[in-house]
């Protein structure tokens, strides 16, 4: 749907102020960045994390008393999908050295290094191999690779500044020092990173970076990385087996308290299967589909926080889940694109953000949480948001500036994915600005782990978005693709070494699930909620009312 006549009228104000803003940009004059103190004030007043009712204490498990989003508490205070007494752990359907739960960027990177270490791998994933937030990451991947102006030292400082200086130091150290090596690895795998004619990687700023170190593959960086890793895993199909549409629903332990496998659920045949493994890597990703505080999300269909609850039931602590990342620029128009990620790279390439008067109110490159808080402030307290026909409010993202700054055709060349998409809606984003608003984007925290991806449970490793610590309280752009590749690879190495040298064969058990059920009962939590949720429910409530036997969970029972 093209812009309505009302919105077209408002776009004129953006066009009026554009020439002067472009001149400012050319002369290097920037809208002033907020000081650390001002940042904190904006966050406390306007960021959704600080809204009343945004946090609730967990009543059971290793983090009892820790206050996080009620939507996540709900999946933690829920029963297993299946009664452990109904599961016969003697009937092992698959046996492998390393079981990887999740077939996204982290899981696939892990599979490659496990295979390189000579161990057998099984990837179990909820949807198709590669259906993951990695696929949807657009803007880029950070790495200090240009020694004449940048170094891991500055990358480290930026990561900490973004994360409110709360990040776990050893994780950040590993992230920034492995970064150049991971880029080299990706180039070697044939990833088509965007380059200058002489071969150097192009690089841009992201919110909160002091050097341009955001490397990218046009505006589909994550998709390019994901499809490359997946193609490589498929090339090694002899050693890397993949079970699609088979999410894990519970970890399996052994009598020594080591992790020794998982219970998988075939979404299509509704069977449960036992996988026995010497080591398990959790790489199930994030939880945007829990729609925290009712926010729209950029996340893929399966992002329901499954790994959090499986790990938590088994006894792994959670951390940094008290903050949630809202990406400042999710589409609010047209309606069918709602929540769709508009990459931060637009702002890195020079596009201003503007209110209804076509005026700037914040620098476009603040860290994500600060930028989002400023958007919300402008739309609420200041009252200068742009209203859409459906009653939503938005902020202008002035993409046409990029064509003026970088030369005609720059938007189409640098953002081919978004250009085509909006063209289909009748909007030419090289001529008209986009309408955006913060959207639920990233799970900053997760399972506690160390820089070798080890958790508190022997034989159980964690990597990628399901884990917490490296990004502190707020992740910077371009550090999630880096996270999944760096820690995915490390998880694979650690898990394969463990499988070879330390794993101890023992009797399988689901007693931890029984104990967790008992704890729920003792805490007085009576609920029919089950977790993991696996898939969000977007069905039509009127249809639901008529689905009288849906609770039979099948057709002929």
């Amino acid at each position, binding site marked *: 749907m093209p812009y309505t006549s009302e919105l077209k009228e408002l776009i004129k104000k953006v066009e009026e102020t554009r020439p002067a803003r472009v001149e400012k*940009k*050319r002369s290097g004059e*920037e809208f002033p960045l907020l000081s650390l103190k001002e940042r904190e004030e904006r966050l406390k007043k306007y960021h959704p994390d600080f809204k009343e009712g945004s946090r609730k204490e967990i009543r059971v498990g290793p983090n009892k008393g820790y206050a996080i989003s009620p939507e996540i508490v709900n999946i933690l205070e829920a029963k297993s999908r299946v009664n452990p007494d109904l599961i016969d752990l003697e009937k092992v359907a698959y046996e492998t050295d390393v079981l990887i739960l999740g077939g996204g960027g982290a899981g696939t990177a892990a599979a490659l290094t496990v295979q390189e270490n000579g161990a057998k791998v099984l990837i179990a994933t909820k949807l198709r191999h590669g*259906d993951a937030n990695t*696929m*949807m990451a657009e803007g880029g991947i950070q790495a*200090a*690779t*240009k*020694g*004449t*102006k940048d170094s*891991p*030292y*500055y990358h*480290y*400082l930026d990561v*900490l*500044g973004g994360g409110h200086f709360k990040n776990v*130091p050893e994780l950040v150290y590993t992230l920034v020092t492995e970064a*150049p*090596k991971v*880029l080299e690895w990706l*180039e070697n*795998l*044939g*990833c*088509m*990173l965007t*380059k200058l*004619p002489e*071969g*150097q*990687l192009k690089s841009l*700023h992201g919110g909160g970076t*002091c*050097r*341009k170190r955001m490397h990218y593959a046009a505006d*589909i960086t994550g998709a390019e990385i994901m499809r*490359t890793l997946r193609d490589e895993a*498929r*090339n090694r199909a002899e050693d890397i087996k993949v079970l699609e549409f088979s999410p894990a629903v519970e970890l399996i332990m052994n009598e020594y308290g080591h992790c020794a496998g998982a219970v998988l659920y075939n979404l*299509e045949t509704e069977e449960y299967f036992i996988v026995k493994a010497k080591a398990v890597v959790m790489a199930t990703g994030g939880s945007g589909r829990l729609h925290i505080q009712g926010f729209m999300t950029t996340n*893929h*269909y399966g992002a329901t926080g499954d790994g959090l609850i499986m790990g938590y039931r088994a006894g792994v602590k959670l951390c940094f889940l008290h903050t949630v990342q809202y990406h400042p620029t999710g589409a609010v128009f047209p*309606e*069918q694109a709602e929540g*769709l990620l508009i990459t931060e790279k637009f702002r890195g390439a*020079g596009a201003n953000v503007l209110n209804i008067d076509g005026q700037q109110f914040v620098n476009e*490159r603040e860290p994500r949480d600060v930028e989002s808080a400023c958007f919300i402030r402008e739309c609420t307290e200041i009252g200068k948001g742009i209203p859409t026909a*459906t009653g939503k409010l938005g902020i202008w993202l002035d993409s046409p500036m990029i064509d003026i700054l970088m030369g005609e055709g720059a938007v189409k060349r640098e953002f*081919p*994915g978004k250009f*085509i*998409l909006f063209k289909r809606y009748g909007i030419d984003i090289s001529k008209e600005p986009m309408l955006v608003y913060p959207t639920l984007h990233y799970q900053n925290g997760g399972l506690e782990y160390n820089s070798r991806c080890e958790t508190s449970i022997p034989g159980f490793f964690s990597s990628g978005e399901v884990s917490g610590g490296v990004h502190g309280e707020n992740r910077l752009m371009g550090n999630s693709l880096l996270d999944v590749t760096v820690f995915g690879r490390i998880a694979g190495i650690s898990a394969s070494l463990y499988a070879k040298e330390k794993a101890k064969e023992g009797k399988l058990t689901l007693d931890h699930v029984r104990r967790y059920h008992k704890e729920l009962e003792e805490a007085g939590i009576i609920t029919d909620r089950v977790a993991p949720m696996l*898939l969000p429910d*977007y*069905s*039509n*409530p009127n249809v639901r009312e008529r689905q009288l036997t849906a609770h039979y969970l099948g057709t002929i029972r």
Partner: protein
Amino acid sequence: MEAQEVKKEEMVPIFIMGKRYEVPSSITIQKAFEYAGYQLIRGCGCRGGICGACGTVYRFPGSYKIEVGLACQTVVQPNMYLTQIPFFPATKSTYDLEKIKPTIESLVKAYPELLRCLQCNTCTKSCPMDIEVMDYMAAAMRGDVARLAELSFDCVMCGLCTARCPAEICQYNIAILGRRLYGKYIALKADHLASMAKEVDKGKYEQMLRGLMDSNEDELKNLYNVREIEPEQADEDWTPKDKTYL
């Protein structure tokens, strides 16, 4: 949640696998499935037009034309007869990228059926991403790996081209082989990656990073505040004034 947000509005009839449903006129095919009561398992991935899970074909009564789209990106239209093709069997050759070269021989050895291409253009007409599939297949047959990579870059691997190809070719897997060959062998190497990786391994940054790791929050905040910011409009040759930590 997404379905619930749909307001009372104009309804249109659509035919999901031949069966009629009335759905709001402004929603996507994907949301229309959910509105009609389907819980999607297959045919739904990123919901953002990039993962290729939801390739859909449709037709209008009285029209010979087969139309295509991604269900998550295509708005419903009255009287469309649609079905999803969430999976289509594909040939996937396995290769060791280290051992092959960016040549026509590599492409043909991996996918001999490439040479069966009739240049009929059905693939291009089947592409929901508006990719010139036939043109990249022509480039592949000429052994022009760079052009193959460039033309196929936006491919989401939904498989609609493969489903309709009369020569039974799996275009998108040929395309990714082309792109990987291009990325590894034809694009000039980014030498700064190897040199930076080497410096890291030699421990050049070890001491300064350990220094940061041992600093308290106030010291870190000071260092953060005084760090020099590369101007946005700076060109590739820009260097900072303070080179202590480079």
